[in-house]
């Protein structure tokens, strides 16, 4: 798809010249001679590029430029102007022109800049690789173009090596096919130039040769990637191009300005208009864009408005001298690096030294022959390019080092952060655990404290009940309310005795419990016959069983005839269990004391009753000190409420454990698992 270009110029010659050239270069140009025509054209379709003459018959080119930039800000605009109008050039660039070309212009420069500007705005759409064909024969160019386009390539055509170099820089083709023999620079020279250019040197080049035999040597000498005879078949051509393209895919591109063959802008400064014109003409012939300034002041003003690639500076000028202008340019960081060549008619060593001292990069004596100047210019441009390249290299190296350092720092930062985070999490979790632990401990302490208060209240209550009887009946007797000979006198004395004994039992239980609690219990293990111990306790409690009209029996495994245990404590265990069972078993019930093995090392002592049973929700409270079941039950079956708690502690002190199985309304079985051999005192 060709790019549309609008050319606005009132000169028919210029319009036709530009139009033909753009047409031939593959653009589709639209021509306009006035502002009005240009506006009409702009309304009809968008343009990839607009070229405007500054002086137009019905208006100012700069106004048109402004309008284009307002309505189509991304459309590049190139201004054309007669070279003497330096102020207009500055105004144009400040108004927003993308390029300012002086008349008379260099056509190849205009075309190259046009391609550049269009490509900057709209990068080339990739429809297959682009191949540049360089050949002076129109027939051959067209023939090859047909072959390549038929195979899906897009094709650029050029008839000379010089033009092709510019085109290659702009278009950066995937490959170049160049004829060996060309007017101007020939094929091998073209390829060498391509290889010298930082931007182009990786572009594969195929050299075309007419003759057979010498072709390959010829091609390799020049640095070509391949060679091809001009009469090769279409298949061979496509195969060759396919081959050179394959390994080159992914060729790198660098910045456009790095190219030696990109359009270069030269600022020439001289107070002689005649000499300026001559320099302009000479340099344009080499493809440079030349900006002319007639004084040091004008040169500085121009530099402020646009970039140039090299400066040619006359020494002797009215106003700012060449040396002073040079000094100012070289002191300004914006232009310090632009190569500057002092140019003077004075051929003496002194002025050369002055020029170099002022900061000039080179010094050329004015001469009718411009060969030396052109060569120096090329050298300076090349030097500038090398400097740019090496600076780019240094910068990219520094950048890489910086990036590496940054990424290292970031990695370290991330590591540190992760580590801190993990430490923080650990500490948080430890803190949380500690807090949970403390809360649990606090709950336990609170529960214990509540139990202690309840115990005190219970103890107070339990002590006051027998004391009430003891003191009350004693007062009645002492105060003479009861006659000594009356039967009540003796009865009341009996009440005092019974209550006193109950009080003593209570105190003993509390002391026992506190002893076990404090870990002060002393066990005196001895070898005993368990049947004998059980028999003794049962004998004592048989009277109680008779009172409650219950039967009391034993069921003892005869194999257990020797155990090592604290006999007094064993009696206490049996006594507590059995008296408890009798207490909670209604009249007519049975209480059985059972002894049986529990594994190799243990024995199981069980007391089974046919009593009221215990609800599952109350089982857990049974052996807990100071915890009482339903108050009513406790009152009804009076007792210290400490028996089971004491029993549990004694069994545990022997290294055993207690438990109960119970069904409400059917009865309960309290058991104690004890080791057959108790070790020496557990304290």
């Amino acid at each position: 798809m060709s790019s549309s270009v609008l050319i606005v110029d009132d000169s028919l010659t210029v319009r036709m010249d530009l139009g033909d050239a753009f047409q031939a270069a593959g653009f589709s140009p639209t021509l306009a001679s006035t502002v009005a025509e240009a506006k009409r054209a702009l309304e009809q379709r968008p343009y990839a590029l607009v070229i405007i003459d500054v002086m137009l018959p019905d208006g100012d080119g700069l106004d048109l430029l402004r309008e284009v930039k307002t309505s189509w800000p991304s459309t590049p605009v190139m201004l054309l102007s007669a070279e003497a109008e330096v102020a207009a050039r500055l105004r144009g660039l400040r108004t927003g022109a993308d390029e300012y070309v002086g008349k008379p212009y260099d056509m190849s420069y205009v075309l190259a800049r046009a391609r550049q500007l269009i490509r900057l705005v709209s990068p080339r759409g990739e429809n297959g690789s682009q191949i540049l064909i360089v050949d002076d024969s129109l027939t051959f160019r067209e023939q090859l173009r047909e072959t390549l386009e038929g195979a899906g390539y897009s094709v650029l055509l050029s008839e000379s090596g010089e033009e092709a170099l510019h085109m290659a820089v702009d278009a950066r083709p995937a490959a170049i096919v160049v004829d060996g023999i060309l007017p101007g620079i020939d094929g091998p020279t073209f390829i060498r130039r391509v290889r010298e250019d930082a931007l182009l040197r990786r572009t594969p080049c195929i050299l075309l040769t007419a003759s057979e035999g010498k072709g390959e040597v010829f091609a390799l000498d020049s640095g070509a990637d391949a060679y091809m005879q001009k009469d090769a078949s279409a298949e061979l051509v496509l195969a060759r191009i396919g081959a050179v393209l394959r390994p080159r895919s992914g060729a790198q591109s660098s910045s456009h300005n790095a190219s030696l063959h990109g359009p270069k802008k030269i600022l020439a400064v001289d107070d002689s208009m005649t000499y300026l014109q001559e320099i302009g003409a000479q340099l344009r012939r080499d493809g440079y864009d030349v900006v002319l300034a007639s004084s040091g002041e004008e040169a500085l003003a121009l530099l402020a408005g646009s970039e140039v690639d090299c400066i040619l500076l006359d020494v002797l000028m009215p106003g700012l001298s060449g040396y002073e202008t040079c000094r100012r340019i070289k002191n300004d960081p914006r232009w310090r690096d632009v190569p500057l060549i002092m140019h003077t008619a004075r051929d003496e060593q002194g002025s050369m030294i002055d020029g170099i001292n002022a900061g000039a990069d080179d010094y050329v004596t004015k001469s009718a022959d411009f060969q030396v100047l052109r060569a120096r210019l090329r050298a300076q441009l090349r030097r500038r390019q090398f400097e740019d390249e090496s600076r780019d290299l240094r910068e990219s190296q520094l950048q890489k080092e910086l990036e590496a350092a940054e990424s290292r720092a970031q990695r370290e930062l991330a590591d540190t952060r992760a580590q801190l985070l993990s430490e923080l999490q650990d500490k948080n979790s430890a803190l949380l655990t500690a807090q949970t632990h403390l809360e649990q401990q606090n709950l336990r302490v609170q529960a214990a404290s509540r139990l202690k208060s309840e115990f005190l209240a219970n103890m107070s209550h339990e002590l006051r009940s027998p004391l009430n009887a003891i003191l009350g009946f004693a007062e009645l007797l002492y105060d003479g309310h009861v006659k000594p000979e009356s039967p009540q006198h003796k009865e009341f004395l009996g009440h005092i005795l019974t209550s006193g004994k109950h009080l003593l039992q209570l105190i003993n239980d509390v002391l026992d419990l506190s002893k076990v609690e404090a870990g002060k219990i002393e066990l005196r293990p001895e070898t005993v016959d368990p049947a004998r111990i059980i028999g003794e306790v049962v004998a004592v409690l048989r009277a109680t069983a008779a009172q409650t009209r219950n039967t009391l029996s034993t069921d003892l495994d005869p194999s257990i005839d020797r155990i090592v245990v604290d006999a007094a404590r064993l009696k206490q265990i049996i006594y507590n269990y059995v008296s408890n069972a009798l207490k909670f078993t209604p009249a007519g019930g049975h209480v059985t004391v059972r002894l049986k093995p529990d594994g190799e090392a243990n024995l199981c002592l069980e007391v089974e009753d046919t009593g009221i049973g215990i609800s599952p929700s109350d089982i857990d409270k049974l052996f807990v000190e100071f915890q009482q079941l339903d108050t009513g039950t406790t009152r009804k079956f009076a007792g210290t409420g400490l028996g089971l708690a004491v029993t549990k502690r004694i069994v545990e002190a022997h290294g055993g454990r207690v438990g109960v199985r119970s069904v409400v309304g059917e009865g309960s079985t309290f058991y104690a698992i004890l080791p057959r051999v108790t070790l020496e005192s557990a304290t």
Partner: protein
Amino acid sequence: MTSPLVLIIDDNALNVQLLSFLLAAHGYEIRSATSVAEAEASLAEVIPHVILVDVCMPGPDGLTLVRRLKADPRTKEIPVVVVTASAMKGDDVRAREAGCDDYVTKPVDTRALPGRIAELLKK
């Protein structure tokens, strides 16, 4: 003048015997009960002049009975003395809140109790 009737309620037989003997010696007529249920049955038969009631008993406790008595127009005027072994801080407050007219802790002072009852009867 007939003797004033005292209703003594306590689950402990010794306590009932002690108070009964003491107050009988001071000229009171005695009825006794060992639970709240028994006491309510007795109250259905005859209204006493004064009631002595223990707190900790199987079934409903003494304070429950006090609240019921004070809520019933037939019995609310009867002076009630709570006689209890619960003598910890706050026990007296709970008894007063239930509506009792006097509060006596065990062991009972047998020399002072008859006087306190006589005081209540005068009011």
